[in-house]
Structure formats: structure tokens, C-alpha cells
């Protein structure tokens, strides 16, 4: 389904033309270093910096935050972010590095922060000058998110925070964190509050960021430890005790089920970034045509052909699901498709990369540090990384609970 296969409003059509024009004349060029598959895999500061420059130029051109209010640095448009996203995809631009800021922090700040805080933070968030991270997970609060132990204590006009966050992607680069924590130990859900916290300026002064190493060998996420960090009350979002409600705004956007469309660029092929595009079945077909498995071309194996087609059907269905989700006459429950997206998307990527193992046969043993690895070893890396997302943001087991309970109306499983 091509981008233009939609009928635009007049505002959208004009904006689309503008975007296309701007993107034609403002190509980000070749990166000076290897760009990873996504923002969550960023570990090289040089890669980050190059991507930040790109995000800022896109923001300055009005392609980021299009539907946000003007006073918060947005474009004040209606349903135009999706147009900008389509055009950036079409132009095969690099992705935006401030993914957590754009996808989770921005809508949460918009809907729940005080006016001053909002207008102070959002422009630098959109431009990518500030990188954001998310302080939700804790050693004892993974899928059971409400089990927060990090504690914020009110002292005078400020809050003093102590606790331990884990799996914090991008914390090693982040200026700001969205933080869910406990303010009342007596009430699991109503005892939570939500803050935005300037962490980079506080490193060594109540904040410690320690890198965690993934099973792939990459860094990219972190532990963040708070020891008597003092945070001003103006950085609290919504009421004390309303943290769970605010977190739901964050999570609904994370799951693609929020009110606002996340600014997202991408589509730059891995040809440009020195590796395979491991989220694309077309790239898998290319791999199959050039890989030998047990001495034969993998693309000729009827069983692997069937696996590839199965996954292509899932990809096409995912696209058509997004399209149908916008047609009220053809959906029974407004959240039925949006709440599926995280589950479907992450399992798609996992299964796609798993097929690549069988396609490569013996060569699937090879990794990024082997010059003979098909596709540079990126498929194996992608398979391992795929578990990050089937686990994170509510493991997929929890996503299935959510769908069964909220959409199908079944009783809670816990």
C-alpha cells in the first residue's frame, strides 16, 4: 500500500506536497559511522549526534510535532504528523534518535504537565536537542508495573527520590527522564505519582547511570540509581497519587493506541547503513536468494518459501489493520486493533529474524565480527534483539491479558 493510496484532506494534501518538496531538497546524506537498527540500540555518541542534527533539521522544517500546539513548539496542524511520517518513510530518511521523548514523553507532558513546564520542555524534545528516557521498570516491577518501589518523599516544596530503575534505554545519553514512582506505600495503584526529571544535570548529584549489557553484547540500556535526588514540584505531572493514570497515557501511546501520532522517520535502507534491513521480508527474500543452506539456494526450498510468505501475509495484514482501524464502520471495538500492535509488531520481527537462521544454514553461526556473515550478521543480531521488545513495555504475555480483558471482556488473570 503506497502512501498516496489515501485521500488527504486539503490541509494534508498541501502539507504532503510541502514535506515531499522539503525532503527532496534536504537529504540527510551519508552517516559517518554505522547507524544501528533503531534508536534503542544507540551506543556510539557519533551516531547519536548525526541523528540529532537530522532530527533538528526536520523539526525546524515543521515535520516533527506537527499536530501539537504552537505554543509548545508544535505545528498546530490537524492530522498532519501521519503525513510527515509517510513522506519521511518514502524518502527513506534516518530514524529519529529521541524515540522515547517523541513517542512517550511528549503526549504525556502535553496532557498532564503544568503549562510552563510543557512549553519549556517540548520544543527541545521535538528538536532532539534533549534526549529522553523512561524510568518505569524496576528489578521487582517488570510486567507488574504498579509494583513500583522507587519512592518520592515530599520535603517542603520539593521531592526527594530514592530507588533503582532498570532496562532504561538511552539513559546514558538522556537529559530527561519520565519517572513513575511511589508516593504512598499503602495503596498499590493510587499510591503512585509521575515526574519528569532532569537526570543528566544530576549525574553524580543523586543520579547514577550504569550501563547494562544485552545478551547480544551491545550496550544501550542502563540501571539508574536515585539517592536523595531532589526534584522541584513543578516537574510533577498531574496530581499526587495520579501516577497510574498518567502512566496509562504513556503506555497507550507506546502501544500505538494513544490519541497522538508519534513523529517517526525511517526507511533508510541498511544498504546505506552497512547492514541488512532486518525488519523487511523483502530483505529476507534477498537473503534467501543469496544464501546457501545445506548446499542449495535457500529461496528454492519450498518450506522456507512458505515461511517467508506466511510472514509477508502478517506484514500486509498489519498494514491493512492500521488502515481499517481508521474506518469506524469496519471495526467493532475502537481499541481492538491499536492494542494489538505492540504484540503483533514485536512477534513479527522475532519470527522474521528466526527464519533468517534457517535460510542461512551453517552460515547462521556467524556474527557481526565475521566478514563472511550473510547480511553482515545483522539478522542474528536482530533475532536476539527481538526479545528485548517481546519482553519490554509489558511482556507479550501481559499484552495478551490486556487484549483478552479490555477488548474481549474476559476476567482478569491475576
Amino acid at each position, binding site marked *: 500500500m503506497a502512501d498516496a493510496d489515501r*485521500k488527504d484532506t486539503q490541509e494534508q494534501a498541501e502539507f504532503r506536497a510541502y514535506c515531499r518538496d522539503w525532503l527532496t531538497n534536504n537529504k540527510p546524506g551519508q552517516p559517518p559511522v554505522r547507524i544501528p537498527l533503531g534508536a534503542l540500540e544507540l551506543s556510539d555518541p557519533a551516531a547519536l549526534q548525526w541523528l540529532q542534527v537530522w532530527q533538528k533539521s526536520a523539526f525546524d522544517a515543521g515535520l516533527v510535532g506537527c499536530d501539537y500546539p504552537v505554543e509548545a513548539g508544535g505545528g498546530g496542524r490537524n492530522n498532519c504528523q501521519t503525513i510527515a511520517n509517510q513522506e519521511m518513510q518514502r524518502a527513506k530518511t534516518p530514524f529519529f534518535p529521541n524515540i522515547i521523548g517523541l513517542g512517550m514523553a511528549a503526549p504525556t507532558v502535553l496532557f498532564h504537565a503544568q503549562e510552563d513546564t510543557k512549553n519549556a520542555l517540548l520544543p527541545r524534545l521535538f528538536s532532539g536537542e534533549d534526549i529522553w528516557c523512561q524510568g518505569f521498570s524496576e528489578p521487582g516491577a517488570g510486567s507488574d508495573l504498579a509494583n513500583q518501589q522507587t519512592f518520592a518523599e515530599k520535603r517542603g516544596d520539593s521531592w526527594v527520590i530514592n530507588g533503582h530503575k532498570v532496562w532504561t534505554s538511552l539513559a546514558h545519553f538522556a537529559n530527561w527522564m519520565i519517572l513513575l514512582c511511589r508516593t504512598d506505600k499503602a495503596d498499590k495503584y493510587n499510591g503512585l505519582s509521575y515526574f519528569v526529571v532532569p537526570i543528566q544535570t544530576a549525574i553524580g548529584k543523586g543520579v547514577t547511570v550504569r550501563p547494562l549489557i544485552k545478551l547480544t553484547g551491545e550496550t544501550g540500556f542502563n540501571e539508574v540509581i536515585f539517592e536523595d535526588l531532589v526534584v522541584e514540584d513543578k516537574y510533577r505531572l498531574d496530581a499526587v497519587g495520579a501516577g497510574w493514570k498518567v502512566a496509562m497515557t504513556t503506555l497507550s501511546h507506546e502501544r500505538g493506541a494513544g490519541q497522538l501520532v508519534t513523529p517517526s522517520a525511517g526507511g533508510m535502507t541498511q544498504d546505506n547503513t552497512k547492514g541488512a534491513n532486518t525488519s523487511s521480508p523483502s530483505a529476507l527474500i534477498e537473503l534467501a536468494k543469496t544464501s546457501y543452506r545445506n548446499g542449495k539456494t535457500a529461496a528454492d526450498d519450498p518450506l522456507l518459501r512458505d515461511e517467508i510468505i506466511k510472514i509477508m501475509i502478517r506484514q500486509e495484514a498489519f498494514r491493512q489493520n492500521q488502515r481499517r482501524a481508521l474506518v469506524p464502520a469496519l471495526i467493532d471495538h475502537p481499541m481492538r486493533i491499536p492494542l494489538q500492535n505492540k504484540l*503483533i509488531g514485536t512477534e513479527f520481527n522475532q519470527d522474521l529474524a528466526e527464519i533468517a537462521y534457517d535460510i542461512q544454514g551453517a552460515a547462521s553461526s556467524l556474527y557481526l565480527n565475521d566478514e563472511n556473515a550473510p547480511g553482515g550478521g545483522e539478522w542474528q543480531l536482530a533475532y536476539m534483539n527481538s526479545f528485548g521488545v517481546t519482553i519490554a513495555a509489558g511482556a507479550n504475555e501481559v499484552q495478551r491479558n490486556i487484549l483478552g480483558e479490555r477488548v*474481549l471482556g474476559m476476567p482478569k488473570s491475576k
Partner: protein
Amino acid sequence: MIEQPKNFGFGEDETMLRDSAKKFFSDHCSADKLHRQVAGNPDIHRNIECIWDKGLWQQITELGWTAACVPEAAGGIGMPLVAALALAEEAGRAAFPSPLISTFNTTFVLRECNSAAANDVLAEIAGGKPMSLAITNQQGSWEPTDTDVSIDKGQLNGTAWFVQDARKAEGLVVSARSAAGVGLYYVAADAAGVAIAADGIIDLTRDQAHISFTGVTAVEVAAPGAGDVALAYALPAIQAVIAADMVGAGEWLLQTTVEYANTRVQFDRPLGFFQAVKHPLVNVMLDIDRAKSLAYSAACAIDSDPERQEWANTVKLAHMAKANASDMAVFASSRAVQFHGGIGFTWECYVHLFFKRQMHNQMLFGDARYHRAILADMLIGQAA
């Protein structure tokens, strides 16, 4: 690049038609009533029956369902294919015993014939005459060029197999081979030389037969060499409509099973508490949504592209829709029986009606593996 409507072309008219179908089925075709109608005789060795309510068919035709997708030029309403899909989806949700799907499929084929004779038959369909296709050989091939019927000097000879709703149809469109290729021919179901041999099938909501033709005089609706082309052009619409029937039936199975799981208590908890029940039902839902999105996108692609500029994309979407829907149909049926437990294994539980319809649907016009193999050749290229 063809511009497609944002809403799949599913506008107010289509929504009204669909909502009236919903009301029609809820008024006239509850599962309870259906069971009394078609499941009266459970005997495994029963005589082969053909049970349907012609009165309801009369009402349907008056509501314009058979005319919906007949072009205006042939006396129909000329609605887009997505309208037929909505009707098929509702018919599937009610496991409706009728020649509706067969008549739709015949319509799609005739629309591709571009002949005056075909238009005459289309006009009869618009007027409410039920029809079916006799285009499958004994080996169950869905390829447009395969037929066991031949035509010589205007007379049909041979047998067509797996003809759907054969004893409900009043007219048949038959594919037949001559030296010049495969053509399509119209015959009345009661014409001389037409012998309908009913099949003993599992699905209680359909009938099926093999039909032998012995020196049957037929009207040519597509010339030799043009018949298989017309069939090929009609196949994506046929696949999408059957997928929609499966989507409707799948949704009935899902919702009915969810309801049972929410009320049936075991170990002091409703079954739906247990993830061993909940998660597979969520997977059924994911499968249904995929099938539904693909089916409507295929139909919309057909509707949006009368010149077939992007025909390969249309064909792809339709194969994907049928493949996905067939797998879904098997899975949704199996889980519905399993999670209904002991009661689901009985004749008195309505689940079996839908189970059997889905197992029939999944093979009709090709099962999932068949469509994926075609897609592999299209999208990956022929294997060495």
C-alpha cells in the same frame, strides 16, 4: 498509482446495507432457529438433504442483495464489492444456509464475461434467481483451465464436481473445454440432460453435488479461450467473499466462546481467568482481524482498479486474504470446540454448525497452503 478511498469504499450506503443485514439475521436466523432448521437429524448415515428457507431468500432478493453487485447496465445496483463482503460476513456470522455466496460468485464470473448473454443472466440474478458455478473437476482443481466437462456442437458432456448449493441454484455457469479452449456456458438447473447427484457433506448449512451433463444444450456466456480468463479475473473477488464469510463465522465462534468462558466456572473461577483459555482466544481474535483487513483491502483494490493497472497487487491481497482466513477458520473452530469442553462436543451445542461450515469454507477455492504456494511463486519467484 491508483488512489484508493480511505474507508475501503465502505460508505454510508454500504453501512446501511450491512446494518440491515445484521438486523435481518438477528430477526430471522438465530443460532437456535438455525439448529432446529438444519440439525434435526443427527444420524451419521442419514439421507442427504438440502435444507433452506426459500421464504428468506425471497426477502433477501427484495432487499436487493443479489442485485447489489450486478452492474447497473445489467439491471443491478452496481454497488462495490465491499458491499458483498459485508453481506457475506453477516451471512457467515449467521451460518446462513442459502445460495447467496454461490450467487455472488456466479455474479463475479459473469461480470467478467462482457457478453450480452452474460448480461442476460446477470439480470436474472438481479431479479433474485439463485445461481452457482460448475467449474471444478473431480480432482478438486481450482485452476480456471481445469474442467472435466467438454463442449462440442453447442452441447455439454461430462461431470462438474464440488458444485456449491447445487440443489438451491436455478441456473449454472459451467466451464467446458473444446479444441479452442475453455469457455463458459449457462444452463438452467432443470435442463434436459443435467443430472444433479447430491454429495453427503459434513457442513449442515450448505449442499454440494457433482453434476453430470449429457448432451446438454447450453448458452455461451464466454467464448472458448475467454472463459478461463473470465474465471481468473473473478477469482480474487470470490476468494475475498469466502474469506469474509469465514471472518463472520470466526467472529461468532470467538464471541460465543468468550461468553461461555466468562460464565462457565471451574476451580472456582470462570474459565476465561485461565490464560490457557484466554490467550488462544486472543490469538483467534488477531487471526480474525488479519483476515478481515486483508479481505476488505482485496475487495477495495478490485473496486478501485477497474482497469486492472495494479492487478498483481489485487491478486496478491486476495490470495493473502483467503490463506489467512482459511487458517483462522480451522483454528477458531478447533478452539471453540475445545474451550466449550464436554458441551462443545455435543450435537446440541450450536458450535458444531459453525465448526463444520468453517472446515468447508477453508478448502473452498483453495486452502491456505495452496494460496501461499501461489504467492511464493509471485513474490519470491519460481523455485529452481
